């Protein structure tokens, strides 16, 4: 059981790390948003799943309720995170950020 928990949380951490690196490395706002919006959702879900497994070591009502609440957090993140991503990128589009393209001299 512990092996599953360790495996899941380490993979979640790796995905979080990739998200953060993407957040720092991508060239423009829109591509950074790809990193922030996508990497975050799945890695949070994986981490939460690991915590559910860890807290569910023995079967009783209290543990079951805690596990359900952690899963509820996952559901709300799953609903809210893409919407927040959309809100931010929409604000960027509205305020007229130029997307980065292969040939930067063509714009301007």
């Amino acid at each position: 059981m512990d092996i599953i928990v360790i495996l899941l949380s380490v993979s979640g951490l790796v995905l979080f790390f990739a998200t953060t690196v993407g957040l720092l490395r991508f060239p423009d706002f829109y591509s950074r948003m790809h990193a922030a919006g996508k990497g975050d959702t799945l890695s949070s879900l994986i981490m939460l799943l690991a915590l559910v497994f860890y807290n569910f070591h023995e079967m009783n009502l209290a543990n079951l309720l805690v596990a359900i609440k952690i899963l509820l957090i996952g559901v709300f993140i799953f609903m809210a995170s893409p919407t927040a991503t959309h809100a931010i990128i929409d604000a960027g589009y509205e305020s007229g950020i130029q997307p980065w393209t292969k040939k930067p001299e063509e714009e301007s």
Partner: protein
Amino acid sequence: MRKVYTFIIMMGFWILLSGKFDLFHLTLGVISSALVSFMSADLFMHETKGPGKLSVGIRFLLYLPWLLYQIGLSTLHVTFLALHPKMKDQIDPTIVTFKTKLKTDLAKVALANSITLTPGTITIRIVDQVFYVHAISRKAAAGLPGEMEDRLANVFERD
């Protein structure tokens, strides 16, 4: 009618949250759920048509595993791009538009969020029937709207 549905859903949510099943707390739960369904039932079920919802819910649950698979793919895609040493050669961002055939708000929102969660694309905005999508590479842009729209049309707009 929609107040009753909202009340039932809220009561279920309360039982999950509360975890206390004595009479006092259940009474509080009934009062709170009634209050919430009085305040915001019209928000929660804006366009409901009644009991036809159940089959839609079941089909949506069947759609979720495919979506999770896509999310996994997209995360791996982003990871690959972020850690690639010559990342700027790999990406080629564009903004594309396309017209959808979905009609209800629910289906459009589900499509928009699915696009956001699948590899290489993010929905920027919806204006009436037209989606503005930012794609990180030409290949991702070419795949729009693709399979997803058909699946969602199957979920939400089949009679």
